[in-house]
């Protein structure tokens, strides 16, 4: 077993989990509108354990229509990785931030430079859904060197040995993709979400969050029976696209928080 340095993102998530709390990580598209940082602050205030900051990319193949639409809006506003990091550097958010984007933006900047920039902006984690573990070595070592947790994803199709390898390599948390498909709201909890969570948790101590498809407080609870918590994206973004703003976002995330805390009262922070 290799020595594993635990970064600030994972540290916080482990601590919260270990306190008996289920983890809630909302996804917010950076640059969606002028006040997008207020949304980040609102969801943090509403009980997020960390916030995923989506840096918009021209070709977001893991995203469904809702997050695509948010990306298009953000790009149309002139949002760039640099502008996002500059804003984040000045933002004052009390929970850890992890960026989520596509590998080309990192490759284009250069992994080293990007890792350093993330760290400088106070970002403590990064999720690149189109950089599978086999291609990720260089990025992971740059990230680790910069103190940024490189989150890895597992999918329902991931076979056992590979899943073990990914869970071992993932920093920050293990992103368990809850179903076969792209981001978007779903009416029901896929059985695959429960299975994948169970599989991951059986092999790792790293927090396991299920993302993709988590839509309602009830679903978050159901999934959290098997996982350490959930990532919520499209369900939040749809509200933002509808103009619900920081308050709506806070209310929605608050409702998820409440449902989770009702079920798992744990040690309140």
């Amino acid at each position, binding site marked *: 077993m290799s020595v594993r340095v635990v970064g600030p993102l994972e540290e916080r998530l482990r601590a919260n989990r270990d306190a008996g709390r289920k983890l809630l990580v909302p996804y917010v598209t950076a640059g969606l509108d002028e006040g997008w940082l207020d949304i980040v602050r609102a969801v943090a205030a509403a009980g997020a354990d960390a916030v995923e900051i989506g840096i918009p990319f*021209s070709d977001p*193949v893991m*995203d469904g229509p809702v997050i*695509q639409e948010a990306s298009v809006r953000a790009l149309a506003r002139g949002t760039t990785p640099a502008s996002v990091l500059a804003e984040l550097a000045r933002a004052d958010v009390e929970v850890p931030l992890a960026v989520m984007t596509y590998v*080309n933006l990192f490759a284009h*900047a250069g992994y080293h430079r990007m890792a350093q920039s993330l760290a400088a902006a106070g970002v403590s984690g990064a999720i690149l859904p189109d950089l599978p573990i086999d291609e990720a070595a260089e990025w992971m070592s740059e990230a680790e060197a910069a103190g940024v947790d490189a989150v*890895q994803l597992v999918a329902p*199709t991931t076979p056992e040995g590979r899943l073990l390898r990914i869970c071992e390599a993932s920093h920050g948390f293990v992103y368990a993709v809850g179903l*076969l*498909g792209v981001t978007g709201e779903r009416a029901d909890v896929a059985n695959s979400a429960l299975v994948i969570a169970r599989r991951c948790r059986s092999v790792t101590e790293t927090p396991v969050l299920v993302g993709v498809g988590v839509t309602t407080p009830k679903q978050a609870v159901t999934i959290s029976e098997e996982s350490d918590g959930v990532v919520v994206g499209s369900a939040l973004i749809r509200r933002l696209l509808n103009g619900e703003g920081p308050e709506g976002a806070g209310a929605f995330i608050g409702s998820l928080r409440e449902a989770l805390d009702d079920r798992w009262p744990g040690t309140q922070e």
Partner: protein
Amino acid sequence: MTAATSMMGEPNEAGRFGEFGGRYVPESLVPACLELERAFHEAWDDPLFRSELNELLHSYAGRPTPVTECRQLSSELGIRLMLKREDLAHTGSHKINNVLGQALLAKRMGKHRFIAETGAGQHGVASATAAALLGLECVVYMGEVDVKRQALNVFRMQLLGATVIPVTSGARTLKDAINDALRDWVASVESTYYCIGSVVGPHPYPFMVRQFQRVVGEEAREQCRVILNGEDPDLVVACVGGGSNAAGTFAGFADTKARLVGVEPEGGAANGHGVAGIVHGMRSNFLQDESGQIEEATSISAGLDYPGVGPEHAYLAAIGRATYESVSDAEVLDAFQRLARTEGILPALEPAHALAWIIRATEEGKIAQGERILMTLSGRGDKDVAEIMELLS
């Protein structure tokens, strides 16, 4: 021999040609790519598969396609120009070679749903054709803009029994159709075969599609030897969108002394003007803005409107084995008309790019008098006639 660097041999085990290629896909798809790689290798090594494919290529798709020596145009240009006639293949372009291979593979893998992306519609029509022939369910993703521009090709696919899904994301053209096809595949990977139309995408696609297209180059090489009394051409030219017809052609000549030239549209010269990046599952050259956002390609020919290029072409350019040139839309239109008048052949606008460069290079002395040139005429121009009529009127 290290596979990675042999001249148009296999990529290395990470699916790379030099530093290009790879398998940059969402985790959900990684097992599928690995399975496909295995299945392709097994099939390719299986004489039964190969003979079934060859039989389809022969008695269904019309292979071998001829090599036509241009009489008038050669003498006007002072060269010896030979055309590899993929325009005569069933469905009107080289795209059929690849889809027949992939459709047979899909059947062998037990996948009954066959999805594809398409720009102008050629790969979509070819996919729908192969699916109809082999009894597969076919779904084709096509940008909404292209659906409107290419209404006849949409109807053609529908006649062949395919479902065409208009893609409304991004710029609503080919790049976005690939994105949506990938999204479909992410969601359906267990039952679905994704048939990529060029030498792009994650490993093993760039390699596999080139292998399915190498019949073009292998036939052409033999045919040239008959025409040239046992010699090879001095120069081999093909247009490059994703680069499948060029890769298939080059594969037949990579180990000869022939210069290899790929011709891109000025507005979509990923090898010429692009930089390295990672999109659509591969590390290759792409047109990007200063942040790394992918730009739209624009050219007169929908089939070359792709902002990237196959990783093997990025590699061939990097090591200097092939060079990549670009031509303007106006040059392409001229070349199109010139071939029609001198040889009675209406080329697709895509291979008219290759011809346009040959004409210019001849005039500029970059092609010497008397050079013997094999150019792949990757498809016929019927699909483009309506557009050209508008452009010229």
